[in-house]
């Protein structure tokens, strides 16, 4: 059966999973450029112009089509797992041929001379890099409003944010442009927008995926993550990019299981922890109801739900907003007008004036705020009171997870966010915005894998449920996610029309 024609005459392939597209391209049942053309047709229909989603910052249609044809040209060899599958990539992951701006003026027009390992692995698997996506500047934000190139809109409700900082990638998946996209996580920047947009978002264990070519924000927290329209799309995406990379000293030499086989994991006998700190009285009533229903569905599949406690959870945001800005203040020192992008002459005509003028003009308000905050907490006289104390409390948060998993709990299930997507411009207080990450930042601080899966809607807006697993137990996490997705009705359980 031929796929129905979509906008612009390109076939509408949005019902096909990434694996199905790859199978058809590899077998010749689908033209090599078909999925790429469909992605661009979808982008033409929803992304550009006034009121458009503004999810895409850079793309090269002809280069993408040429890449797709090159993939098809290797027919007869072993089939590639992502043959001809278009993938959108957050704009802080280095790509050859397309700019890497991190959503910042200071890197406007910058094209990396090398490519991230995750991109090389995607290409080797047959994927086509279709677009670089919008993001909060240098991944600092929870709404994709803090981009120098304008905010991204939520495909479910365009008056609302898609979450952030990987909001462009989340929106690209939710609107049907692509089935797989890459984002990055420092405090929840994949899971929170996945929840807001009604798609699947995975943060792997720290060390599971190479960070080579990911522009550094907070190096002890940063990790490349994957969006999928379904759990299977996300599992396939992670399968391709995971594993040891000699170019990244923090990547771990841990075997990578076949994540898609986790679809067959039985839940009978599995113990799912329900941490009370993630279900506070202030939690949105609709989100609480959807998560309780998800837990009931897991129980019906044979899992045991056990009440547990992670007592230091409420300290995650204060800890995160000391550790992350401290590391950012160091990592972003390299953007000084000499080595990258923007360069603005200072009033004194000298080096310091050039540094200050370049960085002040090039960085937006949120990045400036966090660099100042990070510099302050690391400065003489304040280091022990802020940074050292925060690192000690980070150890307590990590120990909470260690203890609960050592007690026989296999995974944790929580809401991904305390509220559904909020309206663009609704939050102006920086700390209130930071609280969007209250349920996600803990896994970054502790290094655990975690993912958001659509579990329904509240007031027509998507709700995400979060599964957190022990280090390097992504396979188990996917097993629960596959089961939950099936139990809740499969694709689109969370997001409605996605248009």
């Amino acid at each position, binding site marked *: 059966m031929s796929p129905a024609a979509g906008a612009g005459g390109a076939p509408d392939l949005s019902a096909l999973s990434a694996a199905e597209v790859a199978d058809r391209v590899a077998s010749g049942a689908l033209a090599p450029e078909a999925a790429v053309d469909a992605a661009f047709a979808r982008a033409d229909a929803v992304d550009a112009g006034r009121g458009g989603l503004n999810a895409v910052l850079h793309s090269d249609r002809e280069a993408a089509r040429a890449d797709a044809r090159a993939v098809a040209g290797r027919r007869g060899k072993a089939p590639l797992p992502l043959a001809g599958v278009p993938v959108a990539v957050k704009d802080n992951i280095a790509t050859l041929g397309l700019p890497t701006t991190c959503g910042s003026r200071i890197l406007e027009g910058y094209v990396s*001379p*090398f*490519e991230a390992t995750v991109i090389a692995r995607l290409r080797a698997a047959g994927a086509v890099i279709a677009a670089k996506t919008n993001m909060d500047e240098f991944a600092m934000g929870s709404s994709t409003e803090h981009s120098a190139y304008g905010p991204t809109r939520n495909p479910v409700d365009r008056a609302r944010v898609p979450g952030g900082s990987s909001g462009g990638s989340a929106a690209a998946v939710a609107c049907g442009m692509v089935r797989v996209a890459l984002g990055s996580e420092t405090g929840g920047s994949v899971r929170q927008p996945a929840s807001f947009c009604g798609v699947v978002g995975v943060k792997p264990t*720290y*060390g599971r995926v190479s960070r080579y070519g990911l522009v550094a924000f907070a190096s*002890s*927290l940063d990790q490349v993550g994957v969006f999928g329209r379904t759990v299977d799309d996300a599992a396939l995406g992670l399968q391709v990019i995971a594993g040891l990379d*000699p*170019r990244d000293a*923090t990547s*771990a*030499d841990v075997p990578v299981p076949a994540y898609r086989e986790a679809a067959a994991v039985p839940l009978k006998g599995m113990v799912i922890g329900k941490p009370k700190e993630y279900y506070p009285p202030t939690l949105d009533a609709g989100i609480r109801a959807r998560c309780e229903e998800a837990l009931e569905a897991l129980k019906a599949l044979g899992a045991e739900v056990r009440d547990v406690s992670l007592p*230091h959870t409420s*300290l995650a945001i*204060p*800890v995160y*907003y*000391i550790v992350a800005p401290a590391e950012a*203040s160091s990592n972003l*020192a390299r953007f*000084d007008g000499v080595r990258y992008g923007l360069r603005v002459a*200072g009033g*004194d*005509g*000298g*080096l*310091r004036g*050039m*540094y200050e003028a370049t*960085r*002040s003009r090039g960085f937006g308000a949120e990045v*400036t*705020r966090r*660099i*100042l*905050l990070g*510099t*302050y907490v690391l*400065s003489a006289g304040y280091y022990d*009171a*802020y940074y050292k*104390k*925060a*690192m*000690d*409390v*980070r*150890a*307590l948060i*990590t*120990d909470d997870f*260690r203890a609960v998993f050592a007690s026989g709990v296999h995974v944790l299930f929580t809401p991904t966010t305390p509220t559904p997507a909020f309206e663009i411009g609704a939050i102006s*207080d*920086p*700390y209130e915005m*930071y609280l969007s990450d209250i349920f996600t930042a803990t896994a970054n*601080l502790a*290094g655990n894998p975690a993912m958001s899966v659509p579990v329904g809607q509240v007031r027509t807006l998507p709700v995400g449920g979060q599964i957190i697993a022990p*280090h*390097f137990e992504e396979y188990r996490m996917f097993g629960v996610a596959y089961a939950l997705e099936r139990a809740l009705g499969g694709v689109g359980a969370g997001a409605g029309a996605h248009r």
Partner: protein
Amino acid sequence: MAVTNDDVRHIAMLARLGVDESRMPSLVAELNGILGHMEVLSRVDTARVRDGQIDASSAAVSEMWLRPDEGPPLPLLAPRESFAPQVRDGLLLVPRLATHVDEPEESA
């Protein structure tokens, strides 16, 4: 520990950020607002970490390993001349600053 205007000027200098004076009141208020939320950490008992019962240095990656400090050679994917703005005598050239003064050339 309230941040003052002078504190912000000092850390802006350390961070090589030019901060417009008109922006100073709001920046001071924002930083104090954020840091106020951090004060809760000072009341947390971290004796278990201080006593070494929990290893703070490796807490985030407690189940990870250090790989040997060796590896394959990692050449650049493209010669630096292909992406440098300008190269002379093997050195990368960047735009001149007004304060740069060339050394006088030695006369023969």
